[in-house]
């Protein structure tokens, strides 16, 4: 987390509002139920929106801390699955080369 005067919320406050609004929509409820078999939990987006606005208006340090913790938890949740394969440092060097018959033309 960047400290000091350079810090800003990881997302614009409007993004938190948009995610919360999407999460609460009927269409998202249907998608989430279809995929996960349960209703979506949207409260964290609302808390993050409140924290974002609190920081924007009052530069509240607790709001900053709350936002950082929330986003780190999201990143941890997205990465907690064990990878089946080993990640690359760069793409295969030949991935973009033309096929032999195209090279011969």
């Amino acid at each position: 987390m960047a400290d000091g005067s350079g810090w800003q919320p990881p997302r614009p406050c409007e993004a938190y509002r948009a995610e919360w609004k999407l999460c609460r929509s009927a269409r998202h409820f249907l998608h989430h139920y279809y995929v996960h078999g349960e209703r979506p939990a949207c409260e964290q987006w609302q808390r993050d929106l409140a924290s974002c606005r609190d920081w924007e208006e009052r530069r509240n340090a607790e709001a900053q801390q709350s936002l950082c913790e929330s986003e780190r938890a999201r990143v941890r949740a997205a990465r907690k699955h064990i990878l089946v394969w080993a990640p690359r440092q760069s793409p295969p060097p030949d991935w973009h080369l033309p096929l032999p018959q195209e090279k011969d033309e």
Partner: protein
Amino acid sequence: MAGAPDERRRGPAAGEQLQQQHVSCQIVLCQNNIHNQAHMNRVVTHELIHAFDHCRAHVDWFTNIRHLACSEVRAANLSGDCSLVNEIFRLHFGLKQHHQTCVRDRATLSILAVRNISKEVAKKAVDEVFESCFNDHEPFGRIPHNKTYARYAHRDFENRDRYYSNI
């Protein structure tokens, strides 16, 4: 032709990702089996997810059935293949968590289309990797159910520098 013989990886008769070992890759679309724009979009997305996996990881397409299964789970999950509407058109009716059933089934079918193995072996491979690969939503960060989700995913991608430098 120099190099190893090519291996065709065929989706359900609509698209394939052609890989020639040690040479290059391409996506081939079977126009005789693609009948509308929405289907075309899904097939291209499906194959591009395989291409993405090829570029970002050491995927052993030809000798590791779990690697193949993982990419097929991700492609079925993230391409729209298993949307509620598409499943209803296939006369597969289900709602609660049906998406996961569809992903398992279609991943198994995709493996069987390109590998001479039994259905049980294919299904076992899908089961072993499912928990990990179903929850791997790269590069989207979420399942892009429609254009709104895709737009939000793109927004998050464009915001990634700000995001990771402020958490």
